[in-house]
């Protein structure tokens, strides 16, 4: 029997966020009920989050249900967004668009190089026209900036 289901893992993660949030928020000034400090709200929220997450963890533990994750599209799409960010930072807009389209088409088998390249070119040209030409945003097409 699979005990660590995705549902359990997610609730454990939320509990961890709650505990971490509480530990950090304890450093902020709590204040009083009359004059709440910056720590008041976060402390209460963190405690609530932790309690709710623990009850969800128990629920998930008692009734484990298998969940499916489509790993391939998930990794491809996330890599595409990440690739866009990295290329935008270092190489400019044209590489960024080829990166995001090139990586996201890896979600499916046998997508083909030509349609991907056409999509990247068209989307990049459209975005350049709209954001750079029409709206005047500073978006370098190509750069080399480390």
């Amino acid at each position, binding site marked *: 029997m699979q005990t660590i289901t995705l549902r359990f893992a997610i609730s454990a993660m939320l509990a961890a966020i709650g505990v971490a949030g509480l530990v950090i928020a304890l450093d902020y000034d709590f204040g009083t009920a*009359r004059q709440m400090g910056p720590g008041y709200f976060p402390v209460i929220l963190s405690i609530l989050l932790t309690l709710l997450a623990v009850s969800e963890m128990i629920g998930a533990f008692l009734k484990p249900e298998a969940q499916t994750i489509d790993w391939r599209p998930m990794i491809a799409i996330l890599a595409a967004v990440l690739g866009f960010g990295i290329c935008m930072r270092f190489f400019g807009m044209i590489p960024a668009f080829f990166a995001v389209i090139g990586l996201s088409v890896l979600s499916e088998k046998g997508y083909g190089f030509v349609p991907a390249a056409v999509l990247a070119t068209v989307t990049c040209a459209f*975005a350049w026209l709209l954001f750079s030409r029409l709206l005047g945003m500073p978006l370098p097409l190509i750069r080399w900036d480390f």
Partner: protein
Amino acid sequence: MLENILVGAATAFTFQNLIYCFFGVFVGTFIGVLPGLGSLAAISMLLPISFYLDPTTALIMLAGIYYGGEYGGSIASILLNIPGTPSAAITCLDGSPMARQGRAGVALFITAIASFVGGSVGVVALMGFGPAIARIGLSFGPGDYFALMLLGLVAAVTVGGGSVVKGLLMVVLGLLLGTVGTDVTSGEFRYTFGYLELRDGVSLVALAMGIFGIAEVISSIKDAGQRKIREKVTMRSMLPTRADMARTVGPMARGSSIGGFLGALPGAGTVIAAFLAYATEFRLARDKSRFGNGAVEGVAAPEAANNAAAQTAFIPTLTIGIPGSPTMSIMLGALMIHGITPGPLLVSEHPTIFWGLIVSFWIGNLFLLVLNIPLIGIWVRVLQFPYKYVYPVVIALICIGVFSMRNSVFDVGLAVIFGTFGYLMQQVGYSAAPLILGFVLGPMLEENLRRAMLLARGDATRLISDPLTGSILAMSLLLLVWAVFGGLLNLMRTRARAKLPPGEA
């Protein structure tokens, strides 16, 4: 009233506003037609563009996307049996059987008409009740605001169905995310981890795009291959019989009223409006076996309801400044970026925005009628376009949208993180709507609570003993208790039968 409408007409009928209104409803329908992408993602994508527009024009365009999406969503429901937007899910129940019986055209025609009727009723309600509610809103104190926002959050969790614990978790997580950044009262940085970018808080666009846009694209790729449309939709096939027409009048009227009422409540929204309208028709019907087998009432009522709700959703957003749904919260954000604070003063201080927007709703609904009846062929073709060419472009546009908001690579990174969690959480049945709502309402909730407690000299019982604040808080509590102890079991059971996806509330 007439005077106000004229002011609005003078604003809405300028060439620029007409163009952007059309652009908005066109994009909205387009996005609504495509399954897996909602109006929220589209609005977030176009938000950066709206900075370059006059605030009224920007709002007209963004609002057009929103209610346009409600029209478009049902097209996919009818032709593909896949809802284009969450609120059109219920339309699948009878819309899809109608298509299988070769009556897709009639279903589409009735949908368009019902949507138009619902939208019009919603606009009338907005005109009639909006200013009145704004006047009441003027007397609200911070305690009342706090209580109202809390009620909205509780309603978003409980009325939406599904697990209450999961919904509350998302609300609290959203509230916590909302505290990231500079504390308004003390100026202290909270949860910034030394990042300069986080001092202004987490970017709403990065969060919304990650958790809705990216997560939804990932989950829509798998089943994209099996979409096929067999029916041909011609103008002639759209004409309903006289019996069809007679059957839809009542459902349209009831659906519009239900939707108009629910849309104005914070936290309820279009999905619930459509669902309840359908449930009402089902209960009223003499011959229940027709439902689920292509009953025209089952198409007309929910479509009238979700469009009425889409219009009245603007009532709390514009007149009190409390958004009822994630999409409305983005709209609120757009207004604030332009330096306009939505609230009771908006109607009196910015009449051109308020009335201009209302008149643009009329125009937009007329545009949509044209787009959905004579030009229906466009959307059928959009649906036939292979999805494999659509999603890479959508992801690229999401990226550039997130980036251009603040010219920030950091935000793109945040979108990756939120996208990961968003997708995984969606797979286990968490819905993202309460999270976004919590995130947007969080800072306002905290500020009003602090002010209210200061006024009450730190005594919480004073806050509760105030008649208005106390009764709203009691309502929230009641709703929560009702939800936890199975009062909604019946509702949820029926929802499960309808296979409603968790999503935009």
